[in-house]
């Protein structure tokens, strides 16, 4: 039974109060996700009276100046919500039901509003880091709206009522008519909030629907949000915009606290009261792993039924050619290597748009690990060049040094020109160890607990508050004892973790301009690799269901240099060595097996194969 209501809603997105007329269909307790457009973005002319740009919408959809309350002629345009949300009828905005709770200043809120708030903060942080502003206003916002619509939490004619399963004890005897639902066959009268001031409640939470987030079954069936999913959504949106921030970067930014994630509920507005079960939903005690966020992103893409993503072209920073250049810089490898990496990309056909572009609508499309793939390409190229069997690479680097010495005698004393793997290892290894140490100590000092106390249940309140007090006292007393401020790492949002060059705080000398001449030799007209052999682990796919990787079994038989290289990239990308290795195998599969006939059915893990065809450059 549709009827019109004038309602006041508070938008979590832009935290403005607006009054609007909307058609409410079946009002029970409606999810109110405000679709008001932030005033600044909707209309940005300065006010004629006071000159401020601070517009808000009145209930007649008219703009008025928040500064001087001057109402102007302009009314709100029809909001062009999104290009792909087809069924975007604003259907369930209602705040007649939304009322102030008895708690001073508190407001009823839904868990998804909390997530919306978090997403907003994350989006703002990313935009602040230099992502294009569309990220917040269009892409992430649209993804979020689409998510709410598809999971029928909002923007739908038949919202899933999340209250049906919760039991709220009424703290007041009178049934509240606004909560009597017409659509759902709810019989018992419900109270407005889960808690009551006199502490008689059973389900204790600040939000209205925290209880249904706690059952795993419901979480799964209704595809509810969780904290890692906020990052997954950010990742998808970044990918949509083809921004240079890869998943590994995103997680590093989260870990450096440049993107709000840990204890983000501290930022919730005052009126969103936060306690009890909410804590379990929003509390973060771990930064999700790369694999986890990637998996969640894949799931979200399926849930959102996203169309094909914009193609990853060769000028896009996610393209392996450009990404690998970045990682070559990061690990201090010579620039010349890049052309070889590009050859590998070409040979393995990994530079194609069709391969690189993520298309969730196609059934067999893979969701690539772009950063891992670039790292794997570098490793494969290194293996082609140096073999990396703990033997050949050292012989080659000895040769390079020798050649360098000869060259020096002939020409000037410019220092060595040739790239020697040994010199590279001697530069990078100590820097890596230092960085690992630094990272470990940073991790050891990371504050996880928020200053804003989480009260899991009213009866524990005193204990929790006392504990917080003790912790604060301890921290302050030991802090005064140390005297100085513990130097936190300067959190400049750089995409590089190492600094190579002559600067004072650099990790070592830069090797970017070294030559690779020694690794190539001229035979006829073509240049050939000096190293003629290539080894790889078993490339056959393991079809066992629970099989993840065989790396732990293999690790001890693999050459140390190779394992060290995996370790280097696993540190840079914050993933496990096994995952990098898996990606290397994936690249090798594409490189070696794509057109080739699998000539030997090999049961050995390591096999040697002469490379004659593709070794000429």
């Amino acid at each position, binding site marked *: 039974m549709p009827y019109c209501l004038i309602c006041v809603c508070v938008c979590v997105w832009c935290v403005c109060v607006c009054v609007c007329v909307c058609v409410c269909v079946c009002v029970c307790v409606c999810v109110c996700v405000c679709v008001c457009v932030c005033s600044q973005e909707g209309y940005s002319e300065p006010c004629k009276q006071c000159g401020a740009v601070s517009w808000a919408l009145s209930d007649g959809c008219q703009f008025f100046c928040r500064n001087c309350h001057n109402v102007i002629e302009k009314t709100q345009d029809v909001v062009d919500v999104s290009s792909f949300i087809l069924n975007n009828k604003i259907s369930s905005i209602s705040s007649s039901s939304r009322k102030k709770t008895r708690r001073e200043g508190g407001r009823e809120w839904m868990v998804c509003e909390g997530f919306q708030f978090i997403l907003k903060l994350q989006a703002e942080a990313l935009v602040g880091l230099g992502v294009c502003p569309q990220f917040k206003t269009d892409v992430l916002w649209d993804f979020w709206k689409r998510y709410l619509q598809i999971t029928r939490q909002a923007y739908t004619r038949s919202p899933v009522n999340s209250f049906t399963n919760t039991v709220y004890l009424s703290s007041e005897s009178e049934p509240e008519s606004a909560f009597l639902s017409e659509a759902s066959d709810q019989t018992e009268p419900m109270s407005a909030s889960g808690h009551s001031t006199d502490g008689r409640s059973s389900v204790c939470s600040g939000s209205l629907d925290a209880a249904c987030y706690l059952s795993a079954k419901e979480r799964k069936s209704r595809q509810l949000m969780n904290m890692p999913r906020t990052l997954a959504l950010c990742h998808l949106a970044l990918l949509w915009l083809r921004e240079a921030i890869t998943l590994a970067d995103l997680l590093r930014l989260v870990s450096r606290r440049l993107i709000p994630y840990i204890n983000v509920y501290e930022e919730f507005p005052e009126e969103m009261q936060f306690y009890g079960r909410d804590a379990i939903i929003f509390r973060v*005690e771990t930064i999700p792993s790369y694999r986890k966020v990637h998996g969640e992103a894949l799931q979200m893409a399926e849930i959102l039924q996203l169309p094909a993503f914009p193609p990853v072209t060769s000028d896009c920073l996610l393209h392996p050619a450009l990404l690998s250049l970045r990682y070559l810089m990061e690990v201090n490898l010579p620039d010349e290597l890049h052309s070889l990496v590009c050859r590998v990309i070409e040979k393995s056909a990994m530079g194609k748009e069709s391969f690189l572009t993520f298309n969730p609508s196609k059934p067999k499309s893979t969701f690539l690990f772009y950063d891992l793939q670039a790292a794997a390409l570098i490793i494969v190229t290194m293996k082609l060049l140096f073999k990396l069997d703990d033997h050949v690479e050292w012989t080659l680097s000895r040769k390079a040094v020798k050649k360098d010495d000869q060259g020096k005698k002939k020409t000037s004393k410019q220092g060595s020109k040739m790239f020697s793997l040994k010199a590279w290892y001697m530069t990078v290894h100590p820097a890596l160890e230092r960085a690992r140490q630094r990272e470990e100590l940073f991790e*050891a000092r990371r504050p*996880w607990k928020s200053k804003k106390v989480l009260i899991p249940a009213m009866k524990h309140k005193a204990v929790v508050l006392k504990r917080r007090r003790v912790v604060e006292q301890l921290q302050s*007393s030991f802090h005064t004892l*140390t005297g100085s401020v513990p130097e936190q790492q300067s959190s400049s949002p750089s995409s590089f973790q190492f600094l190579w060059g002559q600067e004072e705080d650099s990790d070592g000398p830069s090797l970017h301009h070294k030559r690779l001449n020694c690794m190539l030799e001229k035979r006829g007209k073509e240049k050939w690799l000096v190293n003629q052999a290539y080894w790889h682990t078993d490339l056959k796919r393991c079809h066992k269901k629970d099989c993840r990787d065989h790396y732990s079994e293999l690790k001890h038989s693999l050459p140390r240099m190779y394992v060290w290289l995996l370790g280097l990239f696993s540190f840079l990308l914050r993933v496990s060595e096994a995952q990098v290795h898996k990606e290397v195998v994936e690249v090798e599969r594409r490189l070696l097996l794509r057109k080739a006939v699998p000539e030997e059915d090999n049961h050995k893990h390591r096999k040697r194969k002469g490379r004659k065809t593709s070794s000429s450059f």
Partner: protein
Amino acid sequence: MDDIEAELGISRSVGNEDFSDSSEDERVARKIRPPILLHSSTAQARAKESGFHESSRLCLKAIRDAMLHHHWQEAAQYLSAYSQTLEDTTVNKQSLACEIIWRLGTEILQHHPNSRLEDFNALYEQMKNSGVKNYAKICLEHSFHLLLNGHIYDAKRQLSVAASWRYGKQSVPQSLDLKLIHAYCGFLDYVIWHMKKSSVSEAEDNSSNREMHSYFRQASVTLQEIIAQPGVWDPFVLSYVDMLEFYNDQEEALKVLQNYAYNKDYPSNPNAHVYLYQFLKRHEAPPAKLISILKVLHHLVPSHELMQEYCYLLVNSVVPGHLEESLPVVFNLLDYPSWKNDLDTWNCLLTVMTVFKRKGLQHLIANEWKQRKDFWLTMHYRAYHGRKDSELNRELLLVKAKVAKLLGEHGKPDHFFKYKLLIIFIFLMF
């Protein structure tokens, strides 16, 4: 005297010092967790742990490293970061964190150059109240710390607060702690009494005298109660006896000491016999009584420093048979390396041997010598020893040479050949 066998039996069954009978010991021992390396864990456990737990593990490791390298400043920094583990949501880890912060925190404060007593007090108070399980233990430690810094009255106050504290059902280790707290309460009363005593003797003041007596009453009631329970109570017994002696209640003191030394329920404790001996010696008891006490002590600790006195007592005793007992005592003493270079002991041996020779008991010397010939020669009579003795203590060398001469009569003379040669050489040199 007839308790010796029982005494020795107890000493065999109760290896560790504890306050209760052995069955309870075992129970307590079983409850004590084996040491776990908290800062390291298996790779499997690491894969599952949350970021927060990983942080606290790494932080603990960093604290440990800083402490091992004596970087107290750094350790304090990390401990400040570690304190967030108190807010862990799992109860187990929370109480563990409490204990870790208490123990590491006090250790760091102990060594930190800028730490003040207030810091200690604040830490103890916070830790006492955040993990109630360790309340008694922390109270005890707190009062020890105050005692070390000379705040006796504060320490006393801490203990009396702790003594009146109750939480839930008393567990076995908790009751042990409370017993100790009780004991130290009495002991501190004694300490205060002692201080009052020395101040009172100067200025005869009636009121302070009365105060002193009231402390005596408090202390004696508590100490009596504590000492009555089986256990090792050395300082408490001594203080109680001291007070009793001051008030001229020798009989009670003797009773206490005898009970402490000979009661079968108490764990074997050589000190108990030492205290009894010292008490009797102070009050000029007959030598026979002293000898009987030292005989037990000799069985318990053959290397005890009182054995020389025991030996002289035996030699001078008129009771037949005592003289013969003296020889093994002094020989036993010299079996221990701690007496190897002690001039008095060697003198004692020389005296005893000359007495024996005079009385024609050389066969006894020969007997003892036969048992020890092999290792005494390498232990006392090598050229190296002679050289060292000549550098450090010429007198000792002389006495040892005399003993060697007496011993040489029983063995082949060439046993001491090298040694003698050296002595002659050394004496020719100087």
